[in-house]
């Protein structure tokens, strides 16, 4: 178990979609920006793998939560921008509340000994 003591950059299943939607709350963005924003706001704990970002973007576009258009980036390059749709906004609200519930529930189960247990292993 080599990664045991490293900050685990792997994301929980399903959370990437939510975070992508959350990122798009503050405005349209292309893939590179989305990845950067997630990484920076998580203080570089979460590393967005490109192998999952693009399939995720296409998947949520397919579900109608985001729409896409070709525009030019800050550096004047052609890039595909994603925009949160009304359905996406609703989905985000749902996912956030579900996430809160889940986080709280997991927190309750783990209690305060979380840090000790982590250290003791």
């Amino acid at each position, binding site marked *: 178990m080599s990664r045991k003591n490293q900050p685990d950059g792997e994301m929980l299943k399903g959370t990437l979609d939510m975070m992508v939607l959350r990122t798009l709350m503050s405005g349209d963005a292309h893939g590179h920006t989305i990845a950067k924003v997630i990484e920076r706001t998580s203080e570089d704990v979460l590393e967005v793998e*490109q*192998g999952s970002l693009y399939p995720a973007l296409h998947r949520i576009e397919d579900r109608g939560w985001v729409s896409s258009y070709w525009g030019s980036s800050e*550096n004047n390059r052609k890039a*595909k921008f994603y925009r949160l749709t009304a359905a996406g906004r609703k989905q985000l609200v749902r996912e956030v509340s579900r996430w809160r519930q889940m986080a709280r529930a997991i927190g309750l189960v783990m209690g305060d000994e979380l840090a000790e247990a982590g250290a003791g292993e």
Partner: protein
Amino acid sequence: MSWRRFFRRRRADGDLLEEIEAYIAEEIAENVSRGMSEAEAKRQARIKFGSATVVRESLWRQNTIPLVDNLVRDFRYAARTLLRTPGFSLIAIGVMALCIGATTSLFTVMRSVLLRPLPFRDPDKLLMVYEHFRDPSLNTQGFNYNSVAPGDYYDWRAQTHGFEDMAAWRYWQFNLTGEREELPELLTARGGSWNLFPLLGVHAAIGRTFTESEDQTDGTAVLLTWSIFERRFGGDSSIVGRQIHLDGKPFTVVGILPKSFTYPDAKVQVWVPFRSGLTPENLQYHDHHWSWVVARLKPDVSLANALSQVGAVQYREHLQNLHAPVAEDVASRTLSDDLAKHVKKPMVLLLWAVGCLLLIGCLNLANLLVARSAARQREIAIRSALGAWRMTLIREQLVESLLISLSGGAAGVLLSIAATKWLVGAWTDLPSAQGIHADGTVLLFVCALVFATALLSGLLPAMSSTGKGAIAALQASSRTTAGSQSRTAMRKTLLTIEIATTVVLLLAAGLLLKSFWRLRTTDAGCATDNVLTIGYSLPTKKYDGPVKVNAFNEALLDRVRAMPGVRAAALGSVLPGAGFGGDDDFTIPEHQPVPAGVTQPYAQYRRADPGYFSALQIPLLSGRFFTTGDRAGHPKTIIVSRQLEQQYFPGENPLGKHLHVGAMGSVDYEIVGVVADTLHQVGQPAVPTMYFPILDGESDKALTLAVRTVSDPLSFSIPIQKQIAVLDPELPVSDVLTMQQIIARSLGNASLSATLVLGFAMLSLMLASVGLYGVLSYLTTQRTPEIGVRMALGAERQQVLCLMLGDGLRPALYGLVLGLGASAGTAHLTQSMLYETKPLDPAIFAAVAATLLGVAVLACTIPAWRASRIDPMQALRTE
């Protein structure tokens, strides 16, 4: 999973590629701004992103429907494989097309005739009710379903309550004469009781059907069927309400029957009321059977109950008429069975035959596929070694056979459209009430057939080539492998079944052909070469009385006999071979009366002019022929057939004795001659026959003129018709045929099934021999090194030839024995269709065995000979 994405995945991939480029460009720009060199920035960006291909593949997979994708790939792969060997593919597809096409055609006909409901209201409740004679000796001659006497029908209808209604129809024909110089025409007609159409649930397309008040002896209403309405009256609906002339009498057209109405057969042109043209006495008969009764069962009454009521009435009639042929009982069959009664048996037989053909086609294809899979053995071994699932490998091969079946099925459907059309034309007995065409069920059937054949022909080869032995192919040397041995065994087994099925088909074909040949060469008992026949019927209105009738008939005979090239001319009612002309019972005044309740003597009746027997070369056995003196006003005379003499005058001389014939009034006819038997129908035994002199002038509507000529009889048809037109330009003629044609027509359906089964059998024989050839060629290639060793060790070419021949002939022999056994076991299937031919006819069995062995030896000789020509040095070097 979404279809939209599935079909747009190529575009999505393009988009993604651009997105990735954009991402990397951004990353490079960022890296550069952080102070990296251009090259390092690029390198880092690439490292950060990782493999673009992996991303693209994962998105591609996400957009794919795996099953469809796999199938598309398999199909593409199979198509490429098939295209690489176009010869094989064409043959395989052609064989499947033939087999599927033939099966589809037959199924279309069967579906239309036996399975599709009749186009009537609630057709399941419709029955035909017949009189039923209990005497078993009568039953063998078809009297178990005897047509009904009108008196019985009216009593049944009045006195029983199990049926909603009962209707009757009878045969009739008319001369239709034109109003404005149109050609006269002889019409096939039916008389139908007024309630027939409401009972069937048929409404007139234009106008109406009969009313009860029109169904009287003087009724002059007429219904036209759609075919004559379109053909003769140009589809002009103003004909309704107008008059047409039938036999010179005016009839008022009250309606046109719909196009879909072709009951009881498509030849019927007009319908008149049942009672029209009859006398009140005619309608009271209990012993004259010329009505057909259709009944509709009440919804809450069981068939047995309804029939027993009718049976009770009939038994009473029987008791009241003990001296007349009045049946004791009744019998029924459903209307659809009744219509299909002549075709069910041949249809079932043909279905069996076509099923055999299909099986052989599938086995043949399976055999070819096994051979092909041998060539791909290495590929399959390597793939399974690399971890390919067995299911995937099997699916791939099944797709190949499915592709063959699908292409074959598509071609087969096209083929079957043409074949069905031909079959319907050639099969004259097919009832037409339902209309014969393909429908949704047939289409479903074809789809099922395609998948079944694909499975049947593809599964076995696929299973065998991907089985446990598959990987062994990698381990073994190239010479012989366990896989190829089991494959050879499989091919031999397939071949054995194929040959056995072929033998069954060949035997059926042989038996049917022999039976047909027996029918064909049956002596009808009269001259059949160079005889032309022409039918006509003198309308009673114009020819009222014996004098006028005789004047016409004698004048015509004189004119025809005087024509050059005419050897002789005969005039009769129904000619030998042309069918049953009706029969009647009689008593013999010189004999003790037959006790009540015992079947009365009866005989078929015919009419003949004085020259009839000599013209048709029917030998006189004793007494004399009719003379011109045997006519109205002279003593009544009659000639009987040998069969009648033997049956009713055993050991005595019938000449001078009398027959008292029921239908001919209370007159005794003196027997003046005995003639040899003739057959009324080829394939049926001769029945007792009595001949009345045609010159007695009794009205007998339908007459047939038979003319024996020196050369091609058909060339005389126009000159003879001209002679008739000279005597009466308004008189239409019918059935201008040669005697040979009349007999061929009555054998048409026997010849059709014999020809079809023979065709199927020949095709199977060809397929089987191709299979045999293929297997042995394959074996030869497989055993080349072995044969090389044998020859190097001193085996003679002769011995090698025998070895290989024996190898190929063994499955043929097993198949032959199996097939002969199976045929003997299913003999009862063909038995009822055979005429004077035993289902285990040794000559046919021997001929089939000889044919099969001959073909098998032929098919094996080439590969075996090739094996014997192998150069041992060459063979050993190939190792």
